[in-house]
Structure formats: structure tokens, C-alpha cells
């Protein structure tokens, strides 16, 4: 059931991001809800749930919006594993934890994309990517991640860890 709930949350997140959230672009950039949820699941519920979230979110994005199947799955999977491992050294209830983790995840995601697309022969302007994509997305993701992290923490404590079985 806990895996089902995780997958369902990712599915709902995907629907929101491709439809409703298109209206809340800031500086032309959308919050990456899938990445935010992968980070929140990986920190709050550790690696297995993080991987489940990563695979669900990644496969959905690969189906619809990727130039090759597997790119988003690989990126989110790497983020989930890395964040699960790194966040073990942080105090979970600290407000800084989700911010640091989403910063690592966002930069890591772009780093992987640049590497993959470089080998695919695409050309890009790195300074434009940093200024117009990474920085605004980092900011928006941080706001969303901080809010969802807190909300998720409260839901977990109210559920007394029974349903999600942490």
C-alpha cells in the first residue's frame, strides 16, 4: 500500500505539473514537482520510497516529454539514491535539510542532463542555462520543497507512521 500511495502521489504531481502548474511559471520557469517529491520522499521515507517515487515520476515524464526513454528515470533514480544517502547525515527536522537536498538535486539533475545531451550532440550555452534555467528553478523548487517537506512531515506524524509503515 505504501508503494501504491507513493506512486499515486507522483501521478497526481505529474498531472498537476503538466496542466495546472503551467499557470504559475515564474521568470518563465516551472517548479519541478516530480524532483521535489522525489527529494521529499527520499529524505522523509528513505531509499525504497524514494526509488519508487523516482521510477514512477521518471517513467511518466519519459513517456510523454523525453527525447529518449529512460533519461528522467535515470536522473530521478540517481537523485533518490544520492539524497537518501546524503540526508542520513542531516537532522531531519531542520528547516535547512530540504533546502540543501533540493539544491543538490536540482544542480545534480541539470549536471546529468548536460552530460547526456552533450554526448547526444546537442549544443547549448552553459551561462544561459545557469542564469535562465538553473537559478530560477532552484529558487522555485526550494520554496515548493520546503512547503511540501513541512506538510509531509505533519501528515506522517498524524498518521503515526502506521499506514506508510516507516
Amino acid at each position, binding site marked *: 500500500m505504501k508503494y501504491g500511495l507513493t506512486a499515486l502521489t507522483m501521478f497526481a504531481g505529474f498531472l498537476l505539473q*503538466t496542466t*495546472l502548474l503551467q*499557470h504559475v511559471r515564474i521568470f*518563465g520557469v516551472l517548479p519541478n514537482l516530480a524532483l521535489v517529491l522525489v527529494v521529499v520522499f527520499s529524505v522523509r521515507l528513505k531509499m525504497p520510497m524514494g526509488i519508487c517515487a523516482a521510477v514512477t515520476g521518471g517513467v511518466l515524464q519519459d513517456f*510523454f*516529454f523525453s527525447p529518449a526513454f529512460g533519461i528522467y528515470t*535515470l536522473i530521478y533514480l540517481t537523485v533518490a539514491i544520492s539524497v537518501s544517502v546524503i540526508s542520513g547525515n542531516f537532522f531531519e527536522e531542520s528547516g535547512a535539510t530540504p533546502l540543501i537536498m533540493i539544491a543538490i538535486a536540482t544542480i545534480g539533475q541539470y549536471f546529468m542532463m548536460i552530460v547526456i545531451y552533450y554526448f547526444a550532440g546537442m549544443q547549448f550555452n552553459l551561462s*544561459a*542555462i545557469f542564469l*535562465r534555467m538553473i537559478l530560477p528553478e532552484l529558487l522555485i523548487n526550494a520554496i515548493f520543497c520546503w512547503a511540501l517537506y513541512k506538510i509531509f512531515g505533519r501528515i506522517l506524524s498524524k498518521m503515526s507512521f502506521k499506514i506508510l509503515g516507516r
Partner: protein
Amino acid sequence: MNEYKKKKIMAGIAVAFLLFLIIATFGGGGETSPIENFAGKNISFIQRGFTVGADFFGNILNPVANIWRLDKINKELELENQELRRKLISATLSQKEMEDLSEMKKALNYAEGKGYDFLTCDVVSKDPGTWFNMFIINKGTNDGVFPEQAVINGDGLIGIVYETGKDWAKIVSIIDNRSSVSFKLLDENDFSIGIVEGGAERGLSGYLFDPKAEVNAGQDIITSGLGIYPEGLLIGTISDVIIEKNELLKRIKVEQVVDFKTINRVMVLLPSKEVQAQ
């Protein structure tokens, strides 16, 4: 073998498998697989519902959120309207203006004699990321939509059909990283051609093949007909011309005419029945 080693091997296998998939499927295009078709058909249906709801609330809230900006635009439009009225009274419709209008008609490609039919489609969902600029429409192979067909709206060129399912299709917009369009200047005396490409800079940039071409900011560009896009579709307006001493080519920046954030309905250019019959 301990648990840690097992996990490492499993992670390695997963990464290798995903890398294989990425390499095997890179480039896309063509028709989608049966699994993609099934997922696409059902999920697009739900997404369409979400999009309609989002657009409904967006249309109500946007004017309220932009009230100051709209007031400014309104005043600017009033001034522009007065200016246009003055011009209209004094203007005579010369031969040159007739040619301009004819060229504009061609640019917007309202299809007369071009051998195309229009298929109007709703945008079901848009790319969740910032890297690419794709969206999904609610028409597919069942309606005659196939890869490499041009997609437009009333303002001009939007992009091209990338992959198709039976009842849905993926569209790559011209501002996407992977997009490149051959253009010519919208000028009755100068038909210099070049290439514009999308990129991370949120607009189009490109170059003219002829380094001696007279090109200025404010000139409109249209598709040249070379390559996969039909001739005469309005792409955008040149916003900047960059001449670098070390380069032979003239580089340009282009502001696209279509607002990609607000498109909800597009038209796919299909070969007309007469052309198909031939």
C-alpha cells in the same frame, strides 16, 4: 554476498539498463509503441480535464492579477488606435501595400492554393521541465496526424509533430533545443535565407547564409520552404543583429510571434485531399 554489495550490483544493472534504453530510443520520431499508446490515450484524457479546469480558473484570475499591466496596455492601445486611424485616413492603397498584404497572407499561410488542410487540436498538457519545449495535443494518427507535419496558430509557426499515438501526438515547438527552421526575410526585395534555432535562451537565434544581406532589427522572418516546414509561415521578428569580426555569417536574435506559454489550441497542417489523391 552481503546486502550492501547486492544493492550496489542491482543499482549498477538498473543504470546500465536505463543507459541502454536511452541510447536505443534517442531521437524519437515516428509512431509510439502500444504501451505508450495505451498510457498516452488514457492519461491525456485525464490531463485534458485538468487543463480545461486550469484554463477556466486561469482566464478568471489572470486579468485580476494583471490589472495594472492591462491598464497600461489599454492606454498604449488607445494611443496606437488614434495613430492608426490617422494613417488610415491619409493612406492610399498602393500597389506596394497590396503586395505587402499578399505577403502577409502568405506568411500566415491561410492555406489557399497551398495544398494544405487545417486540423484544429486542443493542447492537452505541456512539458513539465524547462529544458525542452514540447506539448501534447488531442489528435493522432486516427485523424491524419503524422510526424513532421507543421503546427501553427493564428499568429504563426508553432512547431512540428514529433511522435504520434492513435489519439494524441507530441509537438516540439520551434523554441525547443532540438528545433531548427530555415527562414527567409519578409521583404519584397530581399529574400536572403538562413537558419534559426531554439535554445536555452528562451527565444530563437540564428544566422543568415549571405554575409552581405541587408538585415535590420524589426524585420519579420518567414519559413523559406527549404526543409520540412512549408513556405510562408510567420516565425517572428528580428530583435537584434550581431556582426562579429571573426565570423563570416551575420547572427540574429528573433522574438517569436507565438506566446508559447498561453497556447491552448493549435492547427496541424495536413496535406489536402487533392494532394493526397495525387
